[in-house]
């Protein structure tokens, strides 16, 4: 095994793991950043969503070998004090229920607002439709994204 270097939440790291190791397990178990969740391992649910060079990706479908020298952001790095406008809206509107999918939902939503400051409801739904929430927090997710957009996320 050869250590692979990349940046995670602003910190440079070297990870010594098999090159085909999904980024998900690198993040969760090698680096102990457990906010990123394992849901399906098939890119079907979005619970493992992180940003790779600013783009939302499914970390369960992303081999370690493909992220050398890139920038990874996880939920722990979305904001320094948990105060990203989306995180604040999530708390204000009491979005999470079980909460397991919410890191992925937030990272997916953050990528939307980064490229579209004022998404329409349809644009939100289209962008978020790959992220499952079994508890059914979808109505609040939409409202929270709209609220964060209004605050100028």
């Amino acid at each position, binding site marked *: 095994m050869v250590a692979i270097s990349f940046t995670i939440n602003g910190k440079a790291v070297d990870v010594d793991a098999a090159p085909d190791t999904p980024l998900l397990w690198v993040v*969760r178990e090698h680096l102990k950043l457990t906010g990123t969740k*394992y849901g399906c391992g098939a890119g*079907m649910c979005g619970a493992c969503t992180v940003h790779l060079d600013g783009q939302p990706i499914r970390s369960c479908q992303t081999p370690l070998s493909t992220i050398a020298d890139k920038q990874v952001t996880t939920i722990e790095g979305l904001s320094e004090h948990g105060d990203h406008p989306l995180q604040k809206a999530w708390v204000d509107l*009491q*979005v999470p229920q079980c909460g397991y999918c*919410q890191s992925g939902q937030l990272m997916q939503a953050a990528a939307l607002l980064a490229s579209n400051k004022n998404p329409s409801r349809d644009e939100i739904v289209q962008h978020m439709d790959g992220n499952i929430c079994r508890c*059914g927090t*979808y109505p609040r997710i939409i409202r929270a994204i709209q609220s964060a957009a209004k605050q100028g996320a």
Partner: protein
Amino acid sequence: MTMIDQAAATKVSRRGFLGGAAGLTFALSLPGFLVAEGGAALAQGAAGPKPIGAWVSIAPDGAIVLAIPTAEMGQGSLTALPMIVAEELDADWSRVSTIYPPVVPGIYGNPMFGGQMVTYGSGAIRGYWDKIRLQAAAARRVLMQAAADKWAVPLADIHTEPSAVVHAASNRRLSYGEIAGFATVPATMPTIDKSELKKTADYRIIGKATPRFDIPDKTTGAAKYGIDAQVPNMVYATLLHAPVDRATPDHVDDSAALAVPGVLKVIPLDHAIAVVAETVEAAFAGLGALKVTWSSMPADAYGSVAGQKEFLARAANLGDKGASFLATGDVDGIFAKAAKTMTAQYTTDYVYHAGMEPMNATAAIDPAGNGAEIWLGTQGPGPNVLAAAKMLKTTPNKIKHHQFYLGGGYGRRSPPDLMFEVLPLAKAMQRPVKMIWTRDQDVKTAKMRPMTGHQIEAALDANGKVVGWRHRVVAESIIVYGAGEKVMQFTKGLDNIVLEGSKHEYGIPNQSIAYLRENRGVGLSSWRGIGAGYNKFVIESFIDEIATAQKVDPVQFRLGLLQNEPRAQAVIKAVADKAGWGKPVADGHALGFAYAKVVETYVAAIGEISVDEKTGIIRAHKFWVALDPGIVINPDSVLAQTEGNVIFGLSQTLKERVSIVDGKVQQNNYYDYPVLRMAEMPEIDIQIIATDNPPKGMGEATLPLISPVVGNALYKLTGKRMRALPMSPARVKAGLTIT
């Protein structure tokens, strides 16, 4: 080690609460609590419940820590229960936080479930309601008495304000923190009578939308679920389960699995093969390389499509009596002389929980093998600890449980099945083991809501009045699956989980409900809404059939049957009004209605749907719900739970189905077990009708109404009656009951 478990949710460490010298000079944490923590004392017979005082701790600085024994899986009881305690304690809410107590059912058990320390059945609030109010009131009384003694005034002359005792006549006050600084706790806590509890009109915490304790950490990644447990020196395990439930491994070829770098060991379990490795990725790779043959099982010949037809044939065979769940009046007699009878058959498929967090457990066994630590997000800490103790042939106090958040419970995380897998692995490895099932294995090992077949019949008199009712439910038994055949001796052949919701409030004089038990050998467990999930579908669809056959408006028809049920009337009228029932709707759309009392909460719902007749895809546009759970603790949690119920309910109405071929689950993952996604979500409008009645269940109250609402709307729209769940596009397109 630095484990953060559910206690961390409210920023108070267990050490801080229980450490005594470490910060708390006074604690109303009483013998039971300390005994529990002490372990050795527990073994000496603290079995006698000493619950009083075990719930509340107050520090001299006024910080109030409450021991809250319910699992938090998104339903909000980690906040609602403290609201109830704080109300009765008359606490300053801003100073309240919680910890998760040790697993001592004798103190912390839920009276609704035989004192077990479990969280299910929408029973947290309704089960603990009286118990924790009385405990909190006793703690308040101790604080008042201490102040009264200090001031040498009668108890009757003082009162409390938030976190303070006040003697108005002399204008003196002592904060709870100040009292905690000098008071001693009596050996016997005062006894409070229910009549002394606070009156609803005086509530200042209960009924106010209160932000949930667990939410901030659920937006930063800090919230810890079972799967997040990190224990030094741990290894990872994943399982290949028997493809047919409870088959045993016959022959294992583990050479390829062991050749995967990082794989440490392949360990056969009773009904699975475990791959243990230094990393998750190695364990998962090893799983894919296993070659296993399994013992043959009776279920090898079972297929759910054929089984469903057999269930329905059995439901129709009135000579096969089954076990009687309800028998009132003279059902056979009334059917014989009825002016008209109606009969229908309904069926529902197996469904899977599909919680977002795959099943997992972490355990470490002490070197001597007679004690363990377990790290779990579970609905059943009590049963898990008991199972672990039994397995290790030790006592429950030797099992240290760490409670985590649950990434979805929905009933699946109630049984202690994971103990029988993770403990042998931890023993064999002599290292802590974190066991994670893959999603595919989670699906393949589904513990499903049973498939059901129903025959339902109504007898009408010459005026069209429903005078007889016969409902026959055919399904496997969840309690037999969990506890074995012997349990049937105690239940007279019945299964209350399967039969939940089969009774109704329609006041029909002659009724029979019978349970015809099947035994097909598949994995079963409680699933959100339990029996009501299908029984209300059947009842509320059939009531609609009766109403429409008589050309009576379905809402008016139900109001007519529920004349003695004012709370039912209120929710029905409210939702009909809100949804504009009876008024025109958009072209190609229709409204459907259902009413039910589920987990003792009164609910009425209306949904607006349309259908693409070419594809058979039903589109739900809007749902209106009105509900009366009695006293509402945290209104925003009621709204959140109800939104979730509509969406979860719609998911199982339209999409969800596990099929069994040769005894094996055919589905694999979210791609072939789809659940509702955001684009399929309806608009939702909820009206809470709070009444001054004891608070009832919320976590699954609305879910069972969604299927009949959709089916009834579809009938209005197309004239076709869907008598099967799910209402998949294929079934809708064919307009058939079973395809």
